[in-house]
């Protein structure tokens, strides 16, 4: 094959889920990775650039698929994305050759140049698997290169042989295909007896309920410890010292501006003549301090822990352990993934809902996530707000949210038409995460907070000022008083936080601080701000995913459950 100059060639990384595509992608591309939606869908496609023969070519990380007969939206994209000018790098998990070859044979029928990476090659030896690469090349008639994306072994060699990629010359019926695979495997692979490794023993222990459930609690506790120690470390040793240095600069600027409209917008209110980073509500004070010094460290800590968890292969095990419970709420165990992602940011959480394969499950999962799962930014602020009252307040907020999640889920499952189809997921072996890949993912997610979250924080802070200065808050507060004060027991001014909560929930929680609320009111306000409505970014995704009818139903449930739960808390506490 020749790389045709002048025409846009793309390298598509294709393979089964868990074949190591993402690590491979990280190896091939630099940091200039973009994530975009595939046209007409909400399925995200990761695209990067790689230098080949002196020019930059696009490298695309295609969603994993077991075959070319799609069963979900992501797999459909994997099939639709292939274009005539592309070159496919088919990534095979060498330790599951037989199964992976099914997709390979289907790709070979596509008349697109293909080169094959036998990934996890280093693991074949430990697993007693012996594959004859020469024989495999002969059978498949395309270049086959052993690789290990984690250590980097073979990746350069694969790149150097990209020119040799050739289209396949075969065509089979579904039945013939498995027969052919049987023949190929018989000729090219033999498997010996092997001893159980420690990782394999751990795999069994973490899925058997008697040992798996304690392990799950341990891992979740470990994850929270990582999040807390990383984020609090960042705050005390990096961000707070930086903002201590920054303070005199804004103070000089504040004195220079003097009192007036511009001062209110940029610096905000002074408390005893001093700037208060949390309460002042100026763009240059609270607008920068809240997202950078209070929220960003938690985002970073959370995504570091989540990235390690994702890449180790633990999540499918957790999904299996919680499958029984989640089935009672009308979902598969896999729904734990969007819930966990939602704890970082509700937007990726709402996007991840599409891994569930029926509209009913997707509706239940998105609604539950949007109502009861606070994002990391919001949690950081809740911890900051309630932390000084000890664990009691925080525990009340989170147990209320958990109970609400449980009850709404049970009710939706009972009253919505339809059933949950059976679980069927792969649980890949444990693997040590590829650190460069984990760091790159962490970088991308943190960057996404800075580029898409930060502007909304500034907009939120600006809105706060406009709302107060223009008197809109007092007007709305008067109208909504029967609900805010009557049912929820909050002061009228709390409505300002609820308006801003549409833009950013972290800023909204911050707005509660100057109101001088009691612990009871803080608990109710934290719960209500989590539940009543998603932030605008999440709302847009939910709208796209659920459609008009779905979003109306979902929002109805949100508002109703907020009033009920808030009212009960007001009555009980």
């Amino acid at each position, binding site marked *: 094959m020749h790389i045709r100059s002048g025409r846009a060639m793309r390298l598509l990384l294709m393979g089964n889920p*868990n074949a190591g595509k993402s690590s491979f992608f990280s190896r091939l591309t630099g940091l200039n990775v973009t994530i975009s939606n595939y046209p007409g869908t909400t399925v995200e496609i990761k695209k990067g650039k790689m230098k080949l023969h002196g020019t930059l070519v696009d490298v695309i990380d295609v969603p994993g698929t*077991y*075959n070319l*007969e799609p*069963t979900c939206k992501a797999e459909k994209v994997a099939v639709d994305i292939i274009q005539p000018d592309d070159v496919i790098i088919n990534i095979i*998990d060498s*330790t*599951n050759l*037989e*199964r992976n070859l*099914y997709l390979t044979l289907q790709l070979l029928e596509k008349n697109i140049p293909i080169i094959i990476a036998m990934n996890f090659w280093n*693991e074949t030896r430990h*697993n007693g*698997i012996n594959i004859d690469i020469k024989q495999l090349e002969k059978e498949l008639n395309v270049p086959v290169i052993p690789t290990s994306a984690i250590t980097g072994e073979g990746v350069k060699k694969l790149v150097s042989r990209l020119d040799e990629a050739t289209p396949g010359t075969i065509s089979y019926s*579904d039945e013939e295909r*498995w027969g052919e695979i049987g023949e190929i495997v018989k000729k090219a692979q033999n498997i010996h007896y092997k001893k159980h490794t420690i990782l394999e023993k751990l*795999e*069994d222990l973490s*899925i*058997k*309920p008697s040992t798996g459930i304690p392990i799950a609690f341990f891992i979740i506790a470990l994850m929270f410890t990582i999040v807390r120690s990383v984020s609090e470390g960042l705050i005390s040793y990096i961000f707070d010292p930086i903002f201590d240095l920054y303070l005199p600069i804004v103070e000089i600027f504040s004195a220079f501006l003097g009192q007036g409209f511009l001062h209110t917008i940029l610096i905000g209110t002074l408390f005893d003549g001093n700037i208060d980073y949390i309460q002042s509500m100026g763009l240059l004070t609270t607008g920068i301090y809240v997202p950078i010094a209070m929220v960003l460290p938690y985002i970073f800590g959370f995504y570091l822990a989540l990235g390690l968890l994702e890449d180790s292969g633990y999540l*499918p095990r957790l*999904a*299996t*352990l919680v*499958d*029984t419970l989640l*089935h009672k709420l009308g979902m598969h*165990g896999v729904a734990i993934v969007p819930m966990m992602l939602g704890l970082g940011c509700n937007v990726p959480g709402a996007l991840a809902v599409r891994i569930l394969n029926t509209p009913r499950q997707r509706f239940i999962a998105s609604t539950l996530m949007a109502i009861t799962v606070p994002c990391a930014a919001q949690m950081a602020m809740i911890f900051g707000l309630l932390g000084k009252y000890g664990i009691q307040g925080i525990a009340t907020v989170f147990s209320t949210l958990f109970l609400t999640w449980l009850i709404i889920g049970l009710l939706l499952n009972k009253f919505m038409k339809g059933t949950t*189809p*059976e*679980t*069927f*997921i*792969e*649980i*890949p*072996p444990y693997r040590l995460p590829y650190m460069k890949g984990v760091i790159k993912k962490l970088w991308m997610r943190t960057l996404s907070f800075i580029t898409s979250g930060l502007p909304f924080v500034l907009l939120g802070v600006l809105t706060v000022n406009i709302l107060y200065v223009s008197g809109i808050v007092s007007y709305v507060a008067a109208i909504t008083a029967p609900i805010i004060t009557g049912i929820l027991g909050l002061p009228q001014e709390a409505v300002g936080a609820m308006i801003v909560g549409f833009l950013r929930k972290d800023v909204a929680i911050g707005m509660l601080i100057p109101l001088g609320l009691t612990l009871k009111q803080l608990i109710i306000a934290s719960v209500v701000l989590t539940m009543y409505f998603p932030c605008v970014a999440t709302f847009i995704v939910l709208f796209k995913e659920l459609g008009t009818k779905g979003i109306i139903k979902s929002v109805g449930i949100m508002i109703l459950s907020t009033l009920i739960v808030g009212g009960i808390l007001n009555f009980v506490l």
Partner: protein
Amino acid sequence: MEIPLLYLQAGKRATIKKLDGGIGCHKKLASLNLRIGKTIKKITVLPFNGPVVVKIDNTSVSMGRGLAECIFVQEEL
């Protein structure tokens, strides 16, 4: 003797002998290489109607009990 995978004792190895259910079901199972003639090992069954976990090749699969009832296996002695 062929028994549904659901009733195979945890920890035992067995060979898949027969698949019930429709063609869609067979394709779904085949995507994770659960096909007639393949050897599997049952790892565990989660309580309260939870899923069945089996090891196949170098990976594991978690499946609902209904699916585990469609797969007929012969225990390896």
